[in-house]
């Protein structure tokens, strides 16, 4: 039967299992929106800015292990997706971005709301398509989903001219794809796995670095078996948080720039690193030529291009983490590593990186800790980037698999609120806490409207220090306390929330924290808590830029009072 391009798109999305699509419409995508009326099984969530749509689809994808979907019109609509697509690309999040394009006769004529979105997104998509005829649309959608969800996952963009959406074609959904240039390797090479097993069996001070690849391939049980069988301690990357339960005796928490001192010391002392589903990002490794100086490195990753990209690797294994660990676990022998583990436990006791200092001020670390206490870890925490992200990563004890969703690679302020929205849509029965900074929150604050209208029951904690906090921390430490333009004048977020008909409270004191969190959680719907915190609290531990993991600063130096008062841009 003949169908229009718009109908073919909708039918294809349904065939691929899409239930929710986040988007905002405009002229060049109108035929598709018009077709939505015929497909009520596709839930469209109208956002208030395209960046919100793509972050929500990203959060949804990370929370559900499905491919997220978002849709926008041509020109500015498509261009507004760019940050979110780049974010998904950096963190290997599978999503499909659909954009309207001007009609075919207008392409290349600088028509109204025309932009070359396939050109723009070339380096930030796994692949993209400009669809020239309705007859190829079904195959394009099939391929796009296949590419997004297999191998190293990532975003795929499909740009569809308005007249292609209206053009009729025969609709037959293909049952397989033919992509001669795309053959992801999922099984690890047996000889490489044997080599790796030999290293593991011979190691005295082995250490696992667990990355997001474990979460993506849902290899939690395999990782646990590997760690427990050979008694190998586990540290994780930022996005590897919640790949291994942090209340496990073998967990030594996060490594890296703001990782735990004992985690970084473990990396520097290990004689074998088993890096699983991670990519040796510079925030995890610090300077690479002094990274794990005593260790041989086994690197397990699905993307061959990650092998040897940033650090030298002794035994690379390309494949899906779950498959590789499944085979590797059979080849390793039971071990104790008692001495190594007791050393790590000693370091952990001697370097308690997570102490919260005494203060009359409200400290952000305390708030995160209280959210953990209130939820007992039974919640998903979503963050953007910055100090709030680091405190959330450090002070919440992540026990449930895949319970920390954050903008890692791109470090996108404004990811938190729309992503939390997508997470909550994907996990309607779960407690979802959005931990935001006052800066990042204002970058996508408009999604409060979406949250209110759709009654998406996210709990929002604003760690409000009146600064672009992480940047201020760098200005304090590395730019002589010159706080250029990091001080933020903020509106009253409680009033803002109330204007959106979202209940909210402001918290200034320690004893109000726990009741506020409970109130937010008890409320049946979205809720915002504006925590006014100590403005100049810093994130520690910290490996200064250009230093190695061994040069971690654990405790802040006593604060000097800046000579000049910081420039205040406030209208107070």
């Amino acid at each position: 039967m003949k169908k229009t391009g718009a109908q073919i798109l909708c039918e294809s999305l349904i065939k691929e299992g899409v239930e929710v699509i986040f988007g905002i419409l405009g002229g060049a995508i109108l035929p598709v929106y018009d077709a939505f009326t015929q497909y009520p099984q596709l839930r469209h969530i109208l956002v208030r800015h395209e960046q919100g749509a793509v972050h929500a689809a990203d959060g949804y994808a990370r929370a559900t292990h499905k491919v997220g979907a978002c849709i926008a019109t041509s020109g500015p609509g498509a261009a507004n997706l760019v940050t979110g697509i780049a974010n998904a690309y950096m963190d290997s999040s599978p999503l499909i971005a659909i954009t309207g394009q001007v009609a075919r006769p207008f392409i290349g004529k600088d028509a109204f709301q025309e932009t070359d979105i396939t050109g723009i997104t070339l380096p930030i998509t796994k692949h993209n398509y400009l669809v020239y005829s309705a007859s190829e649309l079904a195959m394009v959608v099939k391929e796009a989903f296949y590419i997004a969800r297999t191998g190293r996952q990532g975003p795929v963009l499909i740009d569809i001219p308005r007249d292609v959406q209206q053009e009729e074609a025969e609709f037959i959904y293909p049952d397989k794809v033919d992509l001669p240039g795309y053959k992801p390797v999922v099984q690890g090479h047996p000889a490489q796995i044997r080599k790796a097993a030999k290293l593991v069996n011979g190691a005295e001070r082995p250490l696992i670095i667990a990355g997001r690849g474990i979460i993506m391939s849902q290899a939690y049980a395999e990782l646990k078996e590997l760690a427990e069988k050979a008694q190998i301690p586990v540290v994780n990357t930022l996005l590897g948080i919640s790949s291994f339960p942090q209340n496990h005796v073998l967990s030594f928490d996060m490594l890296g720039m703001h990782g735990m001192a004992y985690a970084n010391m473990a990396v520097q002392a290990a004689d074998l690193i088993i890096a699983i589903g991670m990519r040796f990002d510079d925030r995890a490794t610090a300077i690479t030529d002094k990274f794990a100086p005593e260790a041989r490195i086994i690197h397990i990753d699905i993307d061959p291009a990650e092998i040897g990209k940033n650090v030298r690797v002794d035994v690379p294994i390309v494949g899906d983490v779950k498959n590789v660990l499944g085979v590797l676990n059979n080849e390793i022998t039971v071990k104790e590593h008692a001495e190594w583990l007791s050393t790590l436990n000693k370091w952990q006791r001697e370097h308690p990186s997570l102490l919260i200092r005494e203060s009359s001020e409200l400290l952000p670390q305390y708030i995160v800790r209280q959210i953990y206490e209130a939820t007992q870890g039974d919640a998903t925490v979503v963050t953007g980037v910055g100090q709030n992200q680091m405190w959330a990563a450090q002070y919440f004890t992540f026990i449930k698999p895949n319970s920390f969703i954050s903008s890692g690679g791109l470090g996108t302020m404004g990811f938190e609120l729309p992503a939390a929205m997508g997470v909550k849509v994907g996990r309607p029965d779960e407690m979802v806490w959005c931990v935001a900074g006052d800066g990042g929150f204002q970058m996508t604050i408009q999604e409060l409207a979406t949250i209110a209208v759709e009654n998406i029951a996210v709990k929002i904690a604003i760690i409000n220090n009146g600064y672009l906090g992480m940047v201020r921390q760098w200005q304090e430490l590395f730019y002589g306390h010159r706080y250029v333009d990091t001080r933020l004048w903020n509106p009253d977020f409680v009033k803002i929330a109330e204007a959106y008909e979202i209940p909210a409270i402001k918290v200034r004191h320690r004893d109000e924290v726990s009741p506020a969190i409970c109130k937010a959680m008890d409320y049946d719907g979205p809720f915002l808590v504006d925590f006014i915190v100590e403005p100049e609290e810093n994130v520690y531990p910290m490996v200064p830029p250009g230093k190695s993991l061994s040069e971690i600063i654990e405790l802040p130096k006593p604060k000097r009072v800046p000579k000049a008062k910081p420039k205040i841009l406030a209208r107070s």
Partner: protein
Amino acid sequence: METKEYTISMLVEDKAGVLNRVASLFRRRNFNIKSLAVGGSEQPSLSRMTVVVAADPAQVEQVRKQLDKLINVVKVSDITDADIVARELALIKVAATSSSRSGIIQIVDIFRANIVDVAADSVTVEVTGDEDKVNSLLELLRGFGIKEVVRTGRVALTRGGASSKKNPKH
């Protein structure tokens, strides 16, 4: 690490925008293209690209892997150390007067090049060979006055039965 020239041979899908994807990747990853030649291959739906890059061994390994990740790139081979036939074609328009023309023809003959166009004030020479041969000819013709040059960049195939479809390192 030491930088040298590497020859990478690729089979790519003959679709719109593929050259852009390849070129964009080189720019994005900060890889330096010395030359790039594209044309048909033995298979109707595939084109062959020969790219010469200046890189160190680790970089060229990254180039190869990153190119391999492009969906439209079907095969990538680093054929630098393989037994290959590599050629470049150049057209050289040389200023020529009735008195200098015979001198040009002599040099062209020595290089087994061809004269493909003759005009009142110039001749156009076609030469095929490796880069050194083309460079030497250019050097010798320079004295006569070179008006225009176009070079194709290197194209290469592995010799004999070996196929450049596979990376010899793997």
